[in-house]
């Protein structure tokens, strides 16, 4: 482990940061969060062209830039800081990772170049009404029909499900239980029998959909035993990217809160001179820095194919989610009344913190999962 970024990575961060600052000011975030898709297709294509965002961790053979996951973390962190509205997490991480891990060579060559160019957007339809990203709970069925399948059932909490051109669905063979019979299937956004409803989300900068499948024809991405593992890899990638996104957002909140306390006068002095305020800020800083260490470590572990990457993904997700939420709560508190108004931007990060806390399962789930891995390490299971 390096525990630090290389000069090249630092320069890359500067470039990404500049791009976000120029292209995604808060006026843009507010404009886009009120649209149906929740992001700007042209800007997305541009960020893929200029920065190669969508293909960072994709091998060059499929049009990616073949970087490691540390660069993914950097991009996610800067996106979280600027609250960029984009299909990055849903399409470039979750869907792309599952294609990379589960797809055939031909499917990768067919699907990835367009995703990486930003020409198409994909989603991973996994969770259902129960609200867990867990294969055991999947009820949607895939019935064989020639060499395709027909999908029947419902998906919920699907990131960018309404905007997606390519839909990857986790489904099970009829009559199977648990992890048995789980497979990955591909269909298109415009498929017959597919109903898409945009869900009314607390976090308006992150669009979620409910998808209903009524005999939707889909192709097999992977219906072998390796499908479950591929889903696991994609979820780990998602958790690590999301953890890095969260620390960027938490840092933005801390920065804005501290800045405000240095300006706001009450009782004849700036409120940032009160120890009650200073000590709170010091604790937030500690929280955020510890969470950064977790997120950076997990990203580096993923880049190095560390054997404990799943355990570290859960550690990072749980730590960053708690730190982000605590920071968001205190950031509003430090702003006082103005922090509770719609016109002030703090609530937009607060809502992102809330959506990030629960998306891909909550900290309690991840701590339990972490303990299961720890038990294996300690040879107790």
């Amino acid at each position, binding site marked *: 482990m390096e*525990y630090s970024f290389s000069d090249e990575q630092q320069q890359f961060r500067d470039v990404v940061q500049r791009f976000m600052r120029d292209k995604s000011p808060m006026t843009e975030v507010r404009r886009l969060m009120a649209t149906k898709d929740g992001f700007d297709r042209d800007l997305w294509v541009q960020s893929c062209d200029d920065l190669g965002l969508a293909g960072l961790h994709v091998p060059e053979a499929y049009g990616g830039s073949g970087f490691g996951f540390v660069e993914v973390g950097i991009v996610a962190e800067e996106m979280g800081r600027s609250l960029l509205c984009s299909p990055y997490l849903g399409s470039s991480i979750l869907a792309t990772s599952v294609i990379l891990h589960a797809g055939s060579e031909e499917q990768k060559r067919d699907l990835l170049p367009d995703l990486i160019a930003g020409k198409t957007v994909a989603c991973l339809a996994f969770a259902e009404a129960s609200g867990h990203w867990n294969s055991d709970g999947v009820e949607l069925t895939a019935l064989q029909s020639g060499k395709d399948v027909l999908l029947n059932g419902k998906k919920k909490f699907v990131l960018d499900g309404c905007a997606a051109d390519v839909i990857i669905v986790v489904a099970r063979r009829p009559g199977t239980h648990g992890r048995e019979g789980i497979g990955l299937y591909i269909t298109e956004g415009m498929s017959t029998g597919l109903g898409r409803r945009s869900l009314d989300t607390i976090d308006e900068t992150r669009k979620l959909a409910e998808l209903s499948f009524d005999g939707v024809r889909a192709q097999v991405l992977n219906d072998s035993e390796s499908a479950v593992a591929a889903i696991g890899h994609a979820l780990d990638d998602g958790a690590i990217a999301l953890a890095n996104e969260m620390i960027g957002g938490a840092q933005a909140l801390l920065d804005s809160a501290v800045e405000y306390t240095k300006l706001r006068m009450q009782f004849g002095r700036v409120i940032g001179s009160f120890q009650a305020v*200073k000590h709170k800020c*010091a604790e937030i800083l500690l929280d955020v820095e510890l969470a950064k*260490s977790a997120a*950076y470590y997990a990203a580096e572990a993923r880049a190095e194919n560390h054997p404990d990457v799943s355990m570290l993904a859960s550690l990072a997700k749980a730590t960053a989610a708690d730190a982000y939420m605590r920071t968001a709560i205190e950031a509003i508190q430090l702003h006082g009344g103005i922090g509770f108004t719609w016109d002030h931007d703090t609530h937009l990060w607060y809502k992102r913190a809330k959506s990030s806390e629960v998306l891909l399962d909550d900290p*309690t789930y991840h*701590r*339990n999962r972490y303990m299961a891995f*720890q038990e294996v390490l300690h040879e107790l299971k």
Partner: protein
Amino acid sequence: MSLSEDTRIQQDVRAWLQENWDPDASLIDWRNKLADSGWGVPHWPKQWFGREMPVSMMPIIDAEFERIGAVGVAKIGIRMLAAATLLDCANDNQKSRFLRRILTGEDTWCQLFSEPGSGSDLAGATTRADRDGDNWIINGQKVWTTSAHHAEWGLLLARTDWDVPKHQGLSFFVVDMRQDGIEVQPLKQMNGYASFNQVFFTDVPVASENVVSAVGDGWKVAMTTLAHERRTSDALRRWGKVSDRPGRIYDEERAEVATVMEPYKWYPQRAGRIDLIWPRMVETDRMNDPMVRQEVAKLLMLSYTAEWTAQRARAAQAHGRPQGPEGSLGKLASSHLARAAAKVHTLIGSADALLKGSDGATNGVIAEVLLSVPATSIAGGTDEIQRNIISERVLGMPKEPRMDGGAFRDVPKNPARKS
């Protein structure tokens, strides 16, 4: 520094050790030889027992000592803070009087800074030094003084001027601890140990030649000591490392280490003993309790992220980058960690937390954790002071308005204690 110079130094030290190292020598004779040759503290000035070598050469030299098991100069205890402070701030007369016997380990030192009335506010010391001809007369009380009961010398911070602002009225003295008027009493802590002392001064004379730096410069000198203390506190864990080889010199070194380390026996417990979490969970069969799992996971995650945060600070330093916020957070993180560990040990042990000693879990170690953890958020700078430092130096937030400006005589103080 070129590779050839590395090799040359390595050859020099190796040749010198081959010639001189004798495991059957007395510890003090051997260390006098080290002091004379400059190989005991090669990074010190030539004039003062060193060879003016860059600190970066030290690993090469240490490795040569380790290779043949040669003992070094005294490197543990408060005497090292004394050495660093004197090297930085003392005059030549003082250096020649004290440094050699610090290196040989003949003299033990203690640090007389904290007082019952000034803990976090160290510059509010009220122990007084009044001039009397060529002497200063010391009156007052110091506290939390490790090793005072067997120290030959003390580093004393005392007030010499009450009519100037508080930081300007302090002076720094070297005090002979073996004289009349100094009473040392052990201070028993809530965990049952007595690792520290209270020291009472009644009309104790100290010669003017024992003032370090100028009269009135005491705060600056004390800051030098504290900077060294912070730098070396990480090394505490390594202090206990002793050789198990046979031989007179090793016996004497082991005895020295045992004496110095005695007050620190419970320090692992005050950090929380995270290493005992898994054994305790197995022992108590609490592994599958969902509440325990959650709390243990939180604790382990905190422990790992604190460690990685320290690693990030070290990596930044190694790359020559300016230190980020991660470098200032370690102390506060350890406090959180220690408290969380005590909570989790209680959760795992439940009723076991009622008992200590041989009745307690892990032969009383867990009880010691529960009773030692409160020290972590106080000793070496309270959490409150840490949060002030972090918010002011890292986040750039303004200081609280102060109430202690002007002549120290007029600053509100704690009532004097009756001894």
